[in-house]
């Protein structure tokens, strides 16, 4: 990634670190106050990294070892209510175990930042990446971002605090990262010094909502039917405002670091003249980009669009970039049993976003890489072939295409 003039105003140095270590570096720089941890792979390496930094005196924060994910998320929820900047995270079934605390954190509009190291939901014992864990909060009022590489992991952590804590937003934010492929693989990452973070991230201030003896308020009393609809609508308004706040914050982060692609919500790759566009979230970007390059060499006009923010969903961007294409193929690393055309969650969102277009493209769903199975460049070729055939006429295809499933499974 090019380092421009702007970034030279802020001291940065390069390190070879994993995705979770990149997040840990950001937490140190963001002066996080309270963190809670409970072991589950692959998210947990971020906690090991911060624990080491605290032990070495590089970071002044309290790391509370919880006895369960449910407690972990309640610990940070209440610490956040006192005005502390907090961090937490989990993976797979651990994230689901915390779900009760996760949903109320959003309802209370507390800007908790969490890492989801994506992992398949047991059973059968599956430790590899699948996106169903983090997608479980898609309807819960969390901002939800899918990271694709190490530098983005670090930068987006700052972005997450800045947006979540903005008074116009005040919603929790989950950063999703593909287990192993990103959490545990090493990347060259520019780590900024404190001055950059101070310029970008104002101190967290809950103002009148701080839970403190000076401020005798009751938080989360019983509303029931009297006020719940209004509360829900307020959360929705905050989620809508988040779009503007994200764009603003993203622009400033780009100015300060001198890096990051121009669009805060989606990354586009060779789509200007593309007839067909593949869509995915997270590290599937890597094989898709390689395949796109190779297909382009063979004269195929194919491009790639990576969804970064899943909540708020980038429907404006999708409409802008996808109208009039010959075909759109959505690669889901998740599955939604019994859903529309038996597709994944992203597929359903994308189709819905494009529905209002007069010149809407056919949208075809693909299920790939479940449970951590690798998505290879050849898999992407296969996806593209199917996409072309389906888009050309087989539009009544009842279901998404599963890529790379062995043997008879029905």
């Amino acid at each position, binding site marked *: 990634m090019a380092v421009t003039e702007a970034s030279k105003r802020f001291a940065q140095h390069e390190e070879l670190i994993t995705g979770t270590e990149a997040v840990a570096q950001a937490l140190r720089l963001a002066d996080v106050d309270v963190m809670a941890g409970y072991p589950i792979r692959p998210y947990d390496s971020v906690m090991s990294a911060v624990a080491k930094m605290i032990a070495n005196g590089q970071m*002044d924060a309290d790391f509370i070892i919880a006895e369960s994910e449910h407690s972990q998320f*309640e610990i940070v929820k*209440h610490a956040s209510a006192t005005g*502390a900047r907090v961090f937490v995270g989990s993976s797979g079934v651990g994230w689901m175990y915390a779900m009760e605390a996760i949903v109320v954190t959003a309802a209370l509009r507390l800007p908790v930042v969490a890492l989801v190291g994506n992992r398949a939901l047991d059973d059968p014992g599956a430790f590899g990446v699948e996106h169903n864990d983090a997608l479980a909060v898609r309807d819960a009022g969390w901002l939800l971002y899918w990271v694709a590489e190490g530098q983005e992991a670090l930068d987006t952590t700052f972005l997450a605090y800045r947006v979540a804590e903005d008074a116009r937003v005040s919603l929790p934010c989950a950063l999703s990262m593909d287990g192993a492929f990103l959490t545990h693989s090493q990347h060259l990452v520019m780590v900024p010094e404190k001055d950059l973070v101070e310029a970008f991230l104002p101190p967290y201030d809950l103002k009148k909502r701080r839970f403190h*003896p000076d401020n005798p308020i*009751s938080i989360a009393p*019983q509303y029931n039917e009297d006020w719940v609809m209004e509360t829900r609508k307020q959360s929705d308004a905050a989620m809508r405002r988040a779009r503007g706040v994200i764009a603003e914050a993203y622009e400033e982060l780009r100015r300060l670091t001198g890096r990051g692609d121009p669009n805060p919500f989606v990354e586009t790759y060779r789509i200007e003249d593309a007839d067909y566009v593949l869509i995915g979230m997270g590290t599937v970007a890597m094989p898709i980009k390689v395949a796109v390059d190779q297909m382009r060499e063979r004269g195929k006009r194919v491009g790639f669009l990576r969804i970064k923010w899943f909540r708020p969903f980038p429907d404006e961007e999708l409409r802008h970039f996808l109208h009039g294409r010959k075909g759109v193929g959505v690669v889901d690393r998740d599955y939604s049993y019994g859903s529309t055309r038996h597709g994944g969650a992203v597929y359903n969102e994308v189709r819905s976003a494009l529905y209002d277009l007069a010149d809407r493209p056919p949208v075809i769903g693909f299920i790939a890489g479940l449970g951590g199975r690798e998505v290879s460049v050849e898999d992407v070729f296969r996806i593209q072939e199917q996409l072309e055939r389906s888009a050309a006429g087989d539009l009544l295809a009842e279901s998404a295409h599963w890529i790379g499933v062995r043997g008879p499974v029905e």
Partner: protein
Amino acid sequence: MAITEARPAGRPDLAPIRTIRDVPVEEFYTSGHRTCQGCHSALLMKYLAKAAGPRTVTIGATGCMYVANTSYYATPWVIPWMHTQLGATGAAVIGAAAGYAVQQRKGKLPEEPINVIGIAGDGGGADMGLSAISAALQHTQYNALIILYDNESYANTDIQASGSTPWGAVTAFTPSGTVRRITQDRWKKNTPAMLVAGHPEARYIGSASAAFGVDVMNKIRTALRVGGPTYLHVHDACPKGWDFDPRYSRELGQLAVECGVVPLWEVVEGELRYNGITRQIVEGRRKRKPVREYLMRQGRFAHFTEDDIEYFQSKVDEMWEKWILPGFLPVAALPEGLPRPGRKLAAPADGAVDEGAAGEGAGEAAP
């Protein structure tokens, strides 16, 4: 760094309450709740707010003390109150206490002791929230008090049996039927003693009853004063769940202690003290009343036969006569050669009034 700090800092200066005149007149839990008449859990809320004073925040788990207490626009809490999930009281208080501790250390908040008090029912606290309470008692660098209000059922969801419901009691999940008279066939778990046994570093764990207000308030103050994560288990009469006329709440709460069903004690920095009537019983200065007097005043035991009463009595007798530490340690004998601990007991805390020792105790009105 707090992570290595062994002893809690910044503990409040809360003097013991010696006579009724020492009780603060200010109310920090006032009108605006809609708990049942005679609800002793609500009375406990009033006591804890009085005892802890204005530099306090409270965190309440789901249950009657949430649902019946904090209707929007009508909260009775003058001090801050925040909801936590049914099983999360332990985690919630540690999170809040850590929030204050770190921000004070970093200069983001002025330094002062803040009382963080978590409130859990027996359903939330002794069942699903037990692991979080246990974990909280291990985080010794934080100051927080967890109060379990034990009305002996999941009262708010319409009285279902919890691990803290007495043997034989009728609840929504444990009815008395024509074929099975007793369906609550579990003996009440001894949550506070279990927490003492498992958490040697906790500096205060106690058992109390809302029928003895001064004792409760002193226990709350002692716990906050000694600091660290602490725990108080309070037995509360619940007219709806126990099925009796609300006017008898205090009488029933007191009978539970007099019959020896609920023992009052506290372990302060490793020292066990029995309190009030319990202490008199332990020292042989007072005879336990028959449990029948307590049981037969409540509709939830109305189906009991003589045999049931006898069984209940025998279990309570066992607790007093066989256990090495009555009401506390369910061990009848020590291994050969080990001396049995003496019955010499510590004096009551800080010279506080040994309430109940005088007989009937000071009268308290239900809220």
